[in-house]
């Protein structure tokens, strides 16, 4: 992809996402295990041995209406799946 100059508004809109934590869970790898953590929270919801177990917990919380959605990250940190 050729170098693309980013607009000031786009740069600001990306930065603004840091300001307001969403009502969202993240499923993230941690030292060979998987954590479920709410955005902006200090404590994790739980730590699980496998990603599928963590996804199960996150999915249950989304379905119960405790959170708007959940983002499942891959081992590289990239968002790989969104649970709504």
């Amino acid at each position, binding site marked *: *992809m050729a*170098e*693309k100059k*980013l607009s000031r508004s*786009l*740069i*600001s*809109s*990306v*930065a*603004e*996402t*840091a*300001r307001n934590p969403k009502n969202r869970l*993240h499923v*993230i*790898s*941690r*030292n060979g295990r998987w954590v479920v*953590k709410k*955005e902006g929270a200090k404590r994790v919801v739980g730590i699980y041995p496998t990603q599928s177990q963590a996804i199960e917990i996150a999915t249950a919380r989304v379905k119960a209406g405790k959170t708007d959605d959940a*983002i499942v*990250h891959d*081992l*590289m*940190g*990239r*968002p790989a799946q969104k649970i709504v």
Partner: protein
Amino acid sequence: MPFESNVFINCPFDKFYIPLLQPMLFSVLYFRLNPLISETKSSGQVRVDQIKKHIFNAQYSIHDISRSEALGKNDLPRFNMPFEMGLDFGCQAFGKGKRAYKKCLVFEKKKYHYLKVISDIGGQDIENHNDNPEELVRKLRNWFAAVLNNHQPSPTLIWEDYNKFLTDLSERLKADSFSENDIESLPVSNFILLAREWLQLRKKVYR
């Protein structure tokens, strides 16, 4: 940026290395330092001149020599990274004043692999990342906490923030008509700019 804030990053820039390059850049920005990379802006510019300038202007360096070997049967090893690392060591060895106190971290893929291919660098700070970005963030954080001699956030916090940043970045760029491919091949300078701005606001909110 002042010499004391600059970090020269010597690593590949191909798509296979992006999963390690992006958390490396994000971590350096997290420590309020300024990454210098050798992105050639015009064909007339000699790349090595830009690299020499970066080496001269940076107190810190990160050299990743994990790709200095043939990846496949018909591939050839790449010597750019060891060459640039040598230039940096030379700058420190023969430099005067603050350049004699440059600090560098060398990354390899597997522990002690360097002993087989470039054992002369023994005695330097050498870490392995196993091609694992989470491990790379941890090793970077611990090294910078030691050389900067100050408190840094935990590797876990940096890694989690990085995961969150990638989500925010992806969502905002998609809303601005960037395709998956555009996002994956985002120019390094764009990534640095967006991560820096995001971290500035992130720190205002949480610190």
